[in-house]
């Protein structure tokens, strides 16, 4: 489903962020990318969204080279990939409901579709009773659940989670990871980039470890070892 093939990224003049990275991700897989800050995790995720181009190599999604997709077709790719970030990226002037609905408004969904789908995802992330709260009135964990709900709204094939628990306490961290596992059980591929040791060790899923832009380990039921 996702294929990184001989990816290298060199920032001028000669900073090597990624060095000949190749790996595949299967459908419905839950994969964790681990590594120190600057190891290249986020760069890889941005390449899948075609927000960044590799210096050499190709990134395939559903068999298509994402860098060969025309710019007017990129939004379609991004609707198939839901993204969640450490800083949530919610609009502070919109309520929980509006933040999620916004993702549907931008693609021209009807009011009926928006009400139906937003209610459904709010139910999945367990925030039905907080739909009219503003982000400032929510805890970190709740904000991240809103972000996950928004990422789910287009029924994506893949969820990219870039340090989703970076700002959360252990309780909320567990909460978010459980939610991602639940989403994965529903059939969505999850790519999780993190450096949270406890999270990785508790998952028991595939782990790819990056160091200095290279893959140093790719284990089926991996553990956090750096």
């Amino acid at each position, binding site marked *: 489903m996702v294929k990184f093939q001989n990816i290298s990224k060199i920032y001028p003049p000669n900073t090597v962020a990624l060095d000949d990275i190749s790996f595949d991700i299967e459908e419905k897989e839950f994969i964790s990318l681990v590594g120190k800050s600057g190891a290249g995790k986020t760069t890889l995720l941005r390449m899948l969204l075609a*927000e960044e181009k590799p210096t050499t190599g190709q990134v395939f999604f559903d068999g298509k080279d994402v860098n060969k997709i025309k*710019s007017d077709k990129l939004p379609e790719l991004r609707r198939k990939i839901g993204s969640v970030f450490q800083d949530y*990226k919610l*609009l502070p002037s919109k309520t929980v409901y509006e933040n999620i609905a*916004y993702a549907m408004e931008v*693609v021209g969904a009807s009011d009926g579709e928006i009400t139906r789908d937003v209610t459904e995802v709010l139910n999945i992330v367990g925030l039905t009773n907080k739909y009219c709260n503003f982000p400032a009135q929510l805890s970190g964990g709740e904000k991240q659940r809103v972000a996950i709900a928004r990422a789910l709204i287009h029924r994506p094939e893949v969820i990219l989670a870039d340090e989703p628990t970076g700002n959360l306490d252990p309780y909320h961290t567990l909460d978010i990871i459980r939610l991602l596992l639940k989403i994965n059980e529903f059939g969505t591929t999850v790519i999780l980039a993190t450096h949270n040791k406890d999270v990785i060790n508790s998952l028991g899923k595939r782990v790819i470890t990056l160091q200095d832009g290279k893959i140093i380990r790719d284990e089926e039921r991996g553990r956090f070892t750096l």
Partner: protein
Amino acid sequence: MFRDGSLVAANIFILVMAISAIASLLVFQDASRFLIDSIQGKVDISVYFKFETPEEDILRVKDAVSEVPEVKGVDYVSRDKALNEFTEKHKDNPILMESLAEVGNNPFLASLNIKAFEASQYEAIASFFDNAKFESIVEKVDYHQRRPVIERIYSLTSGLNRVGVVFSVILVLVAVLVAFNTIRLAIYNSREEIKIQRLVGASNWFIRGPFIVQGVISGFFAALICLALFAGLCWAFNSRAESLFPGLGLLGFFLGNFWIIFLVQLATGIGLGATSSFIAVRRYLKV
């Protein structure tokens, strides 16, 4: 969209200046054409004949002059007609009338008033009389006295036009730059929202559209302000312009050409606003 109030105000202000400059060029070109036409209409060459020249000779000269290709028309003003015109024109001026009575007889010379198709052709017509055979009957050719006036008007209007064009080009460049930067800042201020729009798969034009629309709206309002400004100025200076150049009714001109002026202003405003936004969006809003 208009959260950056002062920026948008500055943007509209500079757009108003640029639109005014361009629209003024249009109005100025029309006004200067009117001025030149009216002065050209008044300008002619007067050839004065000596007292003793018989009328038949003058009429013969008239026929000969009419053959010259540059000549548009020739009017014969006899001595009596010249006297009548003078007395008619100055009948309310007792000093002039008294002086005329003092002279006793008709002091006026018979003349031919010659009109050319274009101001530049007067030279050729005047040279027609630089001929030995006319020396005995022609008293003087009254052209050279008027020539500097015509040339001054020509050089003044073409000079002003050139200055206007340069001034407009500079203002247009400044307006594009300011509008461009306003949109650039608007993009910068909305960067978080743009990031989220991209994240959730908004189409390119959904993200870019509002900024282009902002440019168009600024241009539209600038055009409206400009139109009001023009109407006010034409109304305020109407009587003054009319007294300076009879027949040049600013308000009449404005109302008569309202739609053209409005369309020029609208097209300039919207064109400038949209173009600068489009460049800013292409440059700073990579999707």
